[in-house]
């Protein structure tokens, strides 16, 4: 927290909870999210999990802010450390005069003058609370009743924030109500104990870090995976087949619960190949189909995704990117699948690659994915990533009233009457696709090179002509939609630094941009939702007004920077890392400043 926010009534506080996985760290975090939401604050969370089921350290960072929140925050104001390992792994990155609340039953941190340390014997306090009511409960219930550790922590945190306890008490009533009065009483008293314990140590002059905000409009508290699932449902998804994989499983789990009510089918396939095969069958049969996976699964889908491109079958393939090659860093984040999404096929068939750029955007970009798949009868690879997919954040509810859905082109009666041609060589390359059941529309869909009817053919002339027809669809797509599929931030005029990026970096880049602009640096930001076919025109126009172009990305080799090179010949400054963690907005900000200071070989007018 910067000094003035602490005094003013604006709120911007970053809390980080660390503890043994399974220890309740996540529960406490979720409760805090709920408290902040009730106070009308915007929330932005970020979590990392160990790759094991139990054991290992969980990190749960949440930022509460009055007004739009674009990142989990660069520096931590309040660190809650429930164990030693968590503290040593995630103890750095604190803001000046940050507060450390640590479990003094577990460990004692080395003293540090830049920190206010507050000890909380959380397990002891919790056990005392349970003791206090043991006589009121009989054995079994008592045995299964956990000591109110999280509630003590909650009280302590609320006190640290200088927040009123009432909302927390209401919350406890709601959650523990059905467990009986004594349990409620125990928790309320635990809450107060935690709070009191902290206040005593803080003494009188405590800063008030959170100020409730009046919210006119109801907001949603959702993860990226949830928004993607709801976007798919909004887009008319009727068939989902998938195979579980971290961090994409949540999508299938969500749809398994919700899709039946929308008349849809969800099947857990035996592997990713079967999952995509089922989707292609369903889409061939006329239903909007999607599968979702992560890198290893996308690798297995390469052959069938190519069939979809060659046989011209619409399908949405979601890749929630995770860290590392092969099994790699399964619970961490990355943007390292861009190459595979774009180039992952033997020889070449047309394909679209889109990327979600925030939890809120995920809803709409998912709808774009379905519409483009239908309009251009090809596979659409929809990129998300672990950080965005598993993050909970507050977003305004999407206004679905003017939702526009596009349907694939089906044959007209004339086309059916006079020798129907499934792969008719049209001007925009889009051919009429008959849905089984259509009288006179019988044809055989095939991945072998074929003529307009769909019969196999291998002459050089035919091969060239049909390939040209298929790829003309991508040119048409750029013409019709590219403008809508890039987003502009920062200055609309000449810029010292232009930033081109994609995916979950949008928020941190916007934050860095605002900060740099507030300091007089002219920064423009072009955010790509469409990556393939590449919006060349839009990128060139953007670059033409920037003295330098910076491309930040979470990849090892600079996959996006290279993809820009291939399509535009621009030489760009690449800012990259691929260590499993997202960028801090300060990482971006620092690079902006460096570039703004360095001399340049002038603008890109070519």
């Amino acid at each position, binding site marked *: 927290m910067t000094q003035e926010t602490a005094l003013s009534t604006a709120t911007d506080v970053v809390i980080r909870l660390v503890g043994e996985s399974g220890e309740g760290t996540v529960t406490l975090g979720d409760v805090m999210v709920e408290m902040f939401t009730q106070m009308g604050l915007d929330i932005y969370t970020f979590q990392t999990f160990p790759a094991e089921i139990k054991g290992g350290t969980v990190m749960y960072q949440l930022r509460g802010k009055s007004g739009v929140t674009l990142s989990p925050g660069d520096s931590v104001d309040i660190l809650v450390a429930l164990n030693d390992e968590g503290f040593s792994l995630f103890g750095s990155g604190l803001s000046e005069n940050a507060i450390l609340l640590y479990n003094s039953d577990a460990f004692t941190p080395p003293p540090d003058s830049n920190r206010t340390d507050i000890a909380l014997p959380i397990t002891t306090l919790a056990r005392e609370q349970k003791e206090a009511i043991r006589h009121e409960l009989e054995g079994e219930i008592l045995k299964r009743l956990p000591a109110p550790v999280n509630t003590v922590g909650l009280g302590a945190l609320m006190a640290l924030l200088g927040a009123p306890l009432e909302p927390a008490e209401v919350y406890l009533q709601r959650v523990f109500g059905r467990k009986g009065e004594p349990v409620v009483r125990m928790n309320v008293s635990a809450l107060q104990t935690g709070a009191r314990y902290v206040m005593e140590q803080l003494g009188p002059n405590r800063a008030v870090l959170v100020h409730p905000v009046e919210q006119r409009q109801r907001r949603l508290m959702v993860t990226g995976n949830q928004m993607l699932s709801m976007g798919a449902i909004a887009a008319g998804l009727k068939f989902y087949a998938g195979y579980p994989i971290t961090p994409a499983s949540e999508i299938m789990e969500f749809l398994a619960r919700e899709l039946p009510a929308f008349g849809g*089918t969800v*099947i857990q396939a*035996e592997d990713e190949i079967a999952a995509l095969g*089922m989707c292609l069958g369903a889409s061939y049969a*006329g239903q909007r189909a999607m599968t979702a996976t992560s890198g290893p699964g996308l690798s297995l889908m390469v052959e*069938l995704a190519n069939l979809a491109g060659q*046989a011209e079958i619409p399908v949405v393939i979601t890749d929630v990117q995770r860290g590392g090659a092969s099994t790699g860093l399964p619970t961490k984040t990355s943007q390292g699948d861009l190459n595979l999404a774009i180039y992952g096929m033997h020889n070449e068939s047309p394909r679209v690659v889109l990327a979600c750029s925030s939890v809120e955007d995920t809803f709409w970009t998912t709808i774009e994915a379905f519409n483009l798949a239908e309009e251009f009868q090809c596979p659409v690879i929809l990129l998300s990533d672990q950080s965005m997919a598993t993050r909970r954040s507050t977003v305004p509810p999407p206004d679905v009233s003017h939702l526009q859905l596009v349907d694939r082109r089906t044959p007209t009666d004339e086309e059916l009457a006079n020798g129907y041609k499934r792969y008719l060589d049209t001007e925009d390359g889009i051919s009429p696709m008959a849905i*089984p*059941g259509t009288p006179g529309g019988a044809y055989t869909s095939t991945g072998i090179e074929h003529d307009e009817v769909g019969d196999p053919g291998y002459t050089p002339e035919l091969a060239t002509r049909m390939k040209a027809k298929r790829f003309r669809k991508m040119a048409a797509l750029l013409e019709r939609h590219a403008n809508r599929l890039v987003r502009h931030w920062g200055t609309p005029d000449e810029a010292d630094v232009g930033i081109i990026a994609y995916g979950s970096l949008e928020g941190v880049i916007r934050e860095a941009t605002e900060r740099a602009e507030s300091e007089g640096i002219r920064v423009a930001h072009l955010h790509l939702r469409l990556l393939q076919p590449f919006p060349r025109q839009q990128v060139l126009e953007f670059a033409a007004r920037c003295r330098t172009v910076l491309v930040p990305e979470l990849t090892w080799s600079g996959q996006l920077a290279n993809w820009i090179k291939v399509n535009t010949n621009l030489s760009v400054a690449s800012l990259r890392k691929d260590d499993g963690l997202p960028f801090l907005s300060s990482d971006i900000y620092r690079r902006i400043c460096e570039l703004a200071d360095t001399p340049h070989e002038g603008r890109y007018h070519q």
Partner: protein
Amino acid sequence: MSNLAVAADRKLAPRDYKSDLAPIWCPGCGDFGVLSALFKALSVCNLDPDKTVIVSGIGCSSRLPGFVATYGFHGVHGRVLPVATGIKCARPDLNVIGVGGDGDGYSIGGGHLSHAARRNPDVTYLIMNNNTYGLTKGQVSPTSMVPLASVQPRIDPKRWKTTPYGSTEDSINPVALAVAMDCSFVARGFSYRPNQLADILVEAIQHRGFALVDVFSPCPTFNQDQTEEFYRHRTYDIPADHDPTDKLAAFALASQQDAYPLGVLYRNPSKPSIVDEQEFLRRRWQHPEGEDDHLSLLDELLRRFA
């Protein structure tokens, strides 16, 4: 299959299912017999060509969909069952038939078989088993029988190209496996017994659930071991007293290796189908208004996260 989609207004003859595309198979290929038996079965069931989809993989046999005047899906090697399952679950109103070779279905695609059996969609799966890879010019398939030539090595480049000294692998028995998978309909045919094959296919198509029909369909060009003659001498009709619903008996019969029984080996009429159960779930949860009210349903869903 359950409630088949039949041509309501007209009676179709076998030739009505013939497409304009002439089969590209070698003269004497067993697949010709399979194709005509299929034409016959389709006409007996009078399936509506516009509501019928034939799905295949890659191989000589997998070229079949192009020769039939129904909808067709000629996909990639080994993925017939996922595609067919997707079509049938998405559109229960369609008749779905999968076809392909022994390599396509038992080698690269073999992993999907037990899962199709578990799901039991109303799909008929017809395997043209020539005990070899025809399209790639004659290598061993999982059903090839090429014993190790311990004494006199055979180096005839035209024969069993990847196993010139014989195969170091045993062959599989697809019908015995299918019974063990509790595949709800398991039968075996022979392309040189077209009438019997047509009858089997009719039963398979009418069966409500997943039906596997393994058909001996010799490849004269690349398999000089399992020829028409070979099977003429080593096949016999399943005795009338065999009870296909008796799983153990079916397994014993299917396991016969000296001579191969032709006909319906196994049947499990009571096995639930994923198609019906998914239908049930949709009905169970579909709101009275149904889909027409997409937006309000969606809004309700979104509201839950407020």
